[in-house]
């Protein structure tokens, strides 16, 4: 599929290497951190030390001592494993580039892993400063030792980190596809050779039909739909990229666009799914970081109120009158009383997904117009959990996930009969 996007020198290098049991893709770039020693350390914990190929992104300069650079020029025969292949996987750093732009990088790694006939493939896209050998072993062990097909990550994060995932992606994916996966879109994950084959095949077909989808969006639904074995691994702390507030609407549009598109492609799969099941979890959960104390949500509330004043015309194209009324009532509350009910938030997400499907307005406009609503949810969540501890946060997110599940019949009904009266 994406073999064409792999440069000639990298393809020659892969031909030299021949085959690999395990392919580790390192998407993130960090001039100060060398991932190879960590991978080598992780390999010692795996049974029979698999023949490993590391694919590195060399879009940014790395330390001169980096073995990868030297390894590129050596023949595979002289080299000590893991074998390293590096090329420019993405033009920029994946930590700052929206997920959509990383699509080709993931596809290239998957294509390379398939070419090498890998039994397992893991991709690390998070900041390398948080990478430890444990990450690699936790992502690969279930694939190589326990015959799992997909390993998704569980991170030890602060309650206000990974908010798009907590508020939309995780509970939406859980309600739609019926598996309780904490981070269905990774970005760090492990795939078996079998799943890899399916993902690569699906992506090739999609590309041929020129309707390709972001691989991170399609991996978990593909695995669930194909009855592949899925598990989660606790990786530890992840360093989340800092928020660029001026670019938040762009970020939201780039993440939610593929998610909503995925809903359209997998309609049959999620409409027949009833209820949810937990998936196997490996590793010890790391404790959550310390309390942050009071948070300032003034800017987010201001954005929500400004949106309520000015974007009613646009929202009314996708949201029913009852939801709009709820938003108007919410906008006049003082910060102390400001709480967005889960039912309201879930209905907003579902209605935006429906609006995206029906193309009621330009999809770009639709997704960007969701930003003040999302900030309203974040503000409400932050105010509610300002002083809450770890278990309270988990309970809160569980309540939200249940609200998504409870409202699924509404989504299914409106998806099937969009013109039906909706108060």
């Amino acid at each position, binding site marked *: 599929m994406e073999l064409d996007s792999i440069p000639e020198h990298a393809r020659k290098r892969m031909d030299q290497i021949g085959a690999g049991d395990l392919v580790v893709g390192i998407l993130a770039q960090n001039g100060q951190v060398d991932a190879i020693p960590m991978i080598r350390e992780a390999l010692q914990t795996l049974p029979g030390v698999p023949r490993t190929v590391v694919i590195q992104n060399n879009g940014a300069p790395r330390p001169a001592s980096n073995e990868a650079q030297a390894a590129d020029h050596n023949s595979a025969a002289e080299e000590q494993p893991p074998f390293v292949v590096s090329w420019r996987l993405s033009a920029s750093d994946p930590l700052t580039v929206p997920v959509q732009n990383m699509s080709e990088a993931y596809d290239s790694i998957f294509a390379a892993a398939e070419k090498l006939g890998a039994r397992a493939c893991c991709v690390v896209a998070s900041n390398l400063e948080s990478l430890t050998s444990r990450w690699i072993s936790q992502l690969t062990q279930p694939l190589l030792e326990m015959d799992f097909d997909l390993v998704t990550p569980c991170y030890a994060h602060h309650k206000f980190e990974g908010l798009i995932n907590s508020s939309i992606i995780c509970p939406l994916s859980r309600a739609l596809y019926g598996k309780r996966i904490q981070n269905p879109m990774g970005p760090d994950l492990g795939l078996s050779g079998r799943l890899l084959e399916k993902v690569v095949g699906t992506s090739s077909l999609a590309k041929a039909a020129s309707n390709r989808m972001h691989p991170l969006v399609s991996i978990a639904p593909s695995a669930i739909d194909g009855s592949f074995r899925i598990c989660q691994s606790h990786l530890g702390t992840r360093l989340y990229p*800092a928020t660029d507030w001026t670019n938040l609407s762009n970020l939201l549009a780039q993440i939610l666009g593929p998610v909503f598109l995925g809903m359209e492609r997998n309609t049959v799969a999620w409409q027949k799914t009833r209820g949810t099941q937990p998936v196997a979890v490996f590793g010890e959960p790391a404790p959550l970081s310390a309390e942050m104390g009071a948070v300032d949500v003034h800017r987010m509330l201001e954005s929500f109120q400004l949106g309520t004043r000015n974007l009613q015309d646009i929202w009314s194209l996708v949201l029913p009158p009852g939801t709009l009324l709820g938003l108007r009532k919410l906008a006049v509350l003082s910060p102390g009383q400001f709480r967005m009910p889960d039912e309201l938030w879930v209905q907003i997400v579902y209605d935006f997904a429906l609006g995206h499907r029906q193309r009621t307005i330009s999809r770009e406009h639709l997704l*960007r117009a969701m930003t003040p609503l999302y900030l309203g949810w974040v503000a409400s969540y932050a105010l509610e959990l300002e002083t809450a501890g770890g278990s309270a946060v988990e309970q809160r997110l569980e309540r939200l996930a249940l609200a998504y599940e409870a409202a699924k019949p509404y989504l299914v009904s409106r998806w099937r009969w969009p013109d039906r009266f909706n108060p």
Partner: protein
Amino acid sequence: MWNQARQALNESMGRLLSQFVNLLPGIVALIVALLVAALVAWVLALIVKRSLTGIRFDQRLAGWGLPLAEWSPSKSPTLLVTRVVSWVVILIGFLIGLASFDAALTSQLVHSLFAYLPNVLGALLVLLFGNIIARFLARSVLIGAVNMNLQYARLLSVGVKWLVIVLAVAMALEHLKIGAGTVQLAFGILFGGIVFALALAVGLGSKELVTRSLEREASKPSTEAVEEPFRHI
């Protein structure tokens, strides 16, 4: 003398009657043409209405952002298209009926009408696209400005919308050759006036307002520092 007067009266009556009799077929033809055109228009309108309703024309137009609904009777573009089709057919029927009176006059009328038609179509297209672009830009500006937390988001959006609409109307009028010079001049004055007024407002009139606004922005604590705990991806 009475005989002569009676004869003159009879002759004028005869002339009038013969003229009327000469016109009668034309009038009948006009009425028939109008009746047939009305019948055809009704049938066509029915077909068009059913077809457009079948393909959910109104919803599709709304989805594409075309602003036809606002200018349509009962806010239904389907109804607008149906009525336009009916009236065009009736107009054609009227022209056909008119041709039965004086073919030369009608052909001259039709010729000048058709010669002007490209201008009308061009102007309509300019207006339509101008409107679509204006609405699209206005919506983009509104969403962008709200996401940037600008309090005057709506004002910006409306300003952009009307600037583009005024530009489109000026272009359409020029296309129609209606007061070309006047329109150009008026547009120049209006556009230049708006820019000049804005420059004056910001530069002089709103000097203090802008100063206060800038001071407020500068005195705001750094966003990064305040909202640091929030990580979205």
